[in-house]
């Protein structure tokens, strides 16, 4: 007998200026179920949770909790009504004890003062349920993130939540801690709790969830029973690609045939950093576009960070144009002829209040140093050149960059790096969040740059783009390179299967 879902979301919509974050999404959560919510960047997972818990008001649709209409004005209100959220950053207070975090705001009192002994007892009882035995009088900050998360879950349970939302709980956990968390989740499920598990780790979804809901670009792709959805089909749903029945297509293994002659612009050997990226090798030649494909969290941005000197590797060597270099900082990378257009243009790319011109010439000026000032006239000349080349729509080069549209801002950052005339340009999600026209222009630009001899490392979540622009593709998964595809293997299906079948622990259906 199908039981009525404890939480039902119907046709939920939410928009922000210029963005439609959620468009008519349905979602159902049942008691005693672990339900995974998945989607790539911009899919709407985070917005869904925020609308549900009252951070944002909804534009349309309805939410039913235990059969009755549900509305919360804040996460705390939602918690009081029975829906608790545990965030990735564990929004607790590090400088107070575990017991205090569990009971902050609701501490037991005696004659107006907090009863420490009773608080300790109550705290230990809560944690007992979670099979967690720690000194509750220790500061929360002394414990690992895994333990802190358990404490956050404990606090949520103390509020007698019926629905527990876990927002990317495993991102900072090691394998053993993940297992402990799963044990707890299964226990809570057996006790009748409904758990909404937001994650991007495919294997974990198969290890612990009963159902999967996939969102893409703010829309519902579908709700599936985990046991009946093969991994590669899940990946195809996440990426929005149809899965062809091509059993004969082999997955890519080993090195792609490398026919380019001459010294590669970039040669990486055994580069890696614990907890960030596993050791990898890489080569890019002049005039070549190497695409990085993979799901969210696979390590593509981390790879770019290691090459550009933002993260310092633990091991490995890098050679630029044949010369060994130690890329210990972005400045060194810049001086070696590498440029990085970062993933988050808002916080890592543009400097809001500066003009378009100033944003464009910044890296070039840094490269030239403190004593070779680029005179105003030359700045304007450079800015004009790239405004024209990239077709940046702006009334003037002195317009504050924050007034430009996302697409034009992105182009400005690309221009910044082009102005330094790099031999290798790394582009991390250059087409994210911009309109279709600008997307096409950037892709055309990549191709023309490589024609002119620049080496390009192109990172994108959009398989189409990667296939269209790249000469070769490296496939990443769970912080490691798992496959290299040469020109003859570059195909959506191959990519998806490579991601799906890479050796990892996890329950694969059938």
């Amino acid at each position, binding site marked *: 007998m199908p039981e009525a879902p404890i939480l039902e979301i119907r046709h939920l919509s939410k928009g922000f200026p210029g963005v439609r974050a959620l468009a008519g999404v349905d979602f159902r959560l049942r008691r005693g179920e672990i339900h995974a919510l998945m989607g790539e960047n911009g899919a709407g997972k985070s917005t869904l949770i925020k609308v549900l818990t009252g951070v944002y008001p909804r534009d349309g649709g309805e939410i039913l909790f235990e059969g009755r209409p549900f509305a919360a004005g804040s996460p705390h209100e939602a918690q009081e009504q029975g829906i608790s959220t545990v965030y990735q950053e564990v929004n607790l207070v590090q400088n107070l004890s575990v017991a205090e975090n569990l009971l902050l705001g609701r501490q037991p009192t005696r004659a107006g003062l907090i009863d420490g002994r009773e608080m300790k007892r109550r705290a230990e009882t809560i944690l007992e349920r979670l099979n967690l035995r720690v000194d509750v009088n220790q500061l929360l900050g002394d414990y690992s993130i895994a333990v802190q998360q358990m404490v956050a879950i404990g606090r949520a349970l103390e509020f007698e939540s019926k629905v527990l939302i876990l927002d990317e709980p495993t991102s900072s956990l090691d394998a053993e801690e993940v297992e402990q968390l799963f044990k707890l989740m299964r226990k809570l499920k057996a006790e009748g709790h409904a758990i909404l598990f937001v994650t991007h780790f495919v294997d974990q979804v198969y290890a612990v969830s009963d159902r999967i809901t996939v969102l893409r670009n703010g829309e519902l792709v579908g709700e599936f029973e985990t046991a009946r959805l093969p991994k590669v089909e899940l990946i195809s749903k996440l990426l929005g690609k149809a899965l062809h029945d091509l059993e004969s297509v082999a997955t890519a293994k080993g090195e792609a045939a490398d026919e380019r002659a001459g010294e590669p612009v970039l040669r990486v050997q055994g580069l890696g950093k614990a907890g960030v990226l596993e050791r990898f090798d890489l080569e890019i030649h002049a005039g070549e576009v190497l695409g990085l494909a993979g799901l969210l969290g696979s390590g593509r941005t981390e790879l770019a960070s290691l090459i550009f000197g933002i993260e310092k590797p633990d091991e490995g060597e890098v050679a630029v144009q044949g010369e060994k270099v130690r890329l210990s900082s972005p400045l060194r990378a810049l001086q070696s002829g590498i440029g990085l257009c970062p993933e988050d243009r808002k916080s*890592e790319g543009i*400097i809001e209040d500066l003009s378009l011109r100033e944003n464009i010439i*910044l890296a070039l000026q840094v490269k030239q140093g403190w004593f070779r000032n680029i005179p105003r006239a030359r700045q304007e000349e450079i800015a004009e050149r790239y405004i024209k080349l990239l077709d940046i729509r702006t009334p003037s080069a002195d317009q504050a960059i924050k007034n430009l549209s996302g697409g034009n801002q992105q182009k400005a950052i690309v221009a*910044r790096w082009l102005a330094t005339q790099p031999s290798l340009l790394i582009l991390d999600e250059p087409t994210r969040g911009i309109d279709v026209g600008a997307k096409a222009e950037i892709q055309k630009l990549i191709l023309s740059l490589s024609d002119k001899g620049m080496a390009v490392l192109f990172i994108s979540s959009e398989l189409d783009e990667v296939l269209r622009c790249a000469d070769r593709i490296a496939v990443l998964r769970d912080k490691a390179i798992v496959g290299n595809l040469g020109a003859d293997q570059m195909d959506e299906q191959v990519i998806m299967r490579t991601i799906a079948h890479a050796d990892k622990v996890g329950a694969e259906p059938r």
Partner: protein
Amino acid sequence: MIPRLRRLTSSPLTWPLVTLAAILLFNLLFTPGFFRVELKDGHLFGSLVDIVKNAAPVMIIATGMTLVIATGGIDISVGAVVAIAGAIAGVLVTRYHAPLLPVLVLPLIAATLCGAFNALLITGFGIQPIIATLILMVMGRGLGQLIIGGRVLWFRMASFEYLGTGYLLGLPVRIFVAAALLALLALVLRTTPLGLFIQATGGSAKASRYSGLSVGLVKFVVYTFSGLCAGVAGLVLTANIHGSDAALVGMYIELDAILAVVIGGTSMSGGKFNLLGSLVGALIIQSLTTTIFTKGVPVQFTLVVKAAVVVIVILLQSGEFRRQLAALVPGRATR
């Protein structure tokens, strides 16, 4: 006509100038003789001259403070550095009877080292600017008093006093000092990318790092320069009273300087800065004080008025307040 008007009103210098003009206009209408400038003994006298003369030390300090605030930081030690510089100058004159050059140069070197000390704490140890500069603020006056040896030094040295009380071409010398400092800075800003680097650091340190910029170096330069400015102001103030009183000289001048910078349009969170605005801000503060004085209002009200100005500036810079104001005016869109 309209586009040009719009360009005028959107210039960052507009509001400070308008405020200054309003104060001057008020005086033009209600204070007889405010605008009278006389030439006596080859010197210009008058309320206007007084304003510029008394504002000069704050302007000097505001020059350095503007850059510091533009990187998103703050320097509350400048008053103490003023005391230290003044103390060294006083001691050099009275105890060592030093010639003019060392009396001018050594305090400046000391002040610059103070600035470098702050810079080291902030960039080397990663201490928050307000905390790092607090240390020198607490210690500085004590150090100054120590250098002097406990009392207040009174001295006469004509060539030195010229700096504080002298006149050149009819105008007080200190104005030229402030102008010279500003010109020096303007030269540096024009011939090096320092201005761009400061604005980038304050605008987004993260994006600046991604562009290869050494944010630590930018901050180091800026705090050291702030120390130098404090040293110059210390010399002017000490020359003015021809005495070194480490306990009282430049008291609360850091607050006036911060206020001048904020009124002048540089945001406390960093980014674009407005040097001329800071100077106008210093003039605004001083003209308020002078207006109160000439109107015969008891001097104790000066502080209350300054407080009111700060409150107005805070509210205007608060997005929340602007929203509430806009809600009161039907139909007007928020900025």
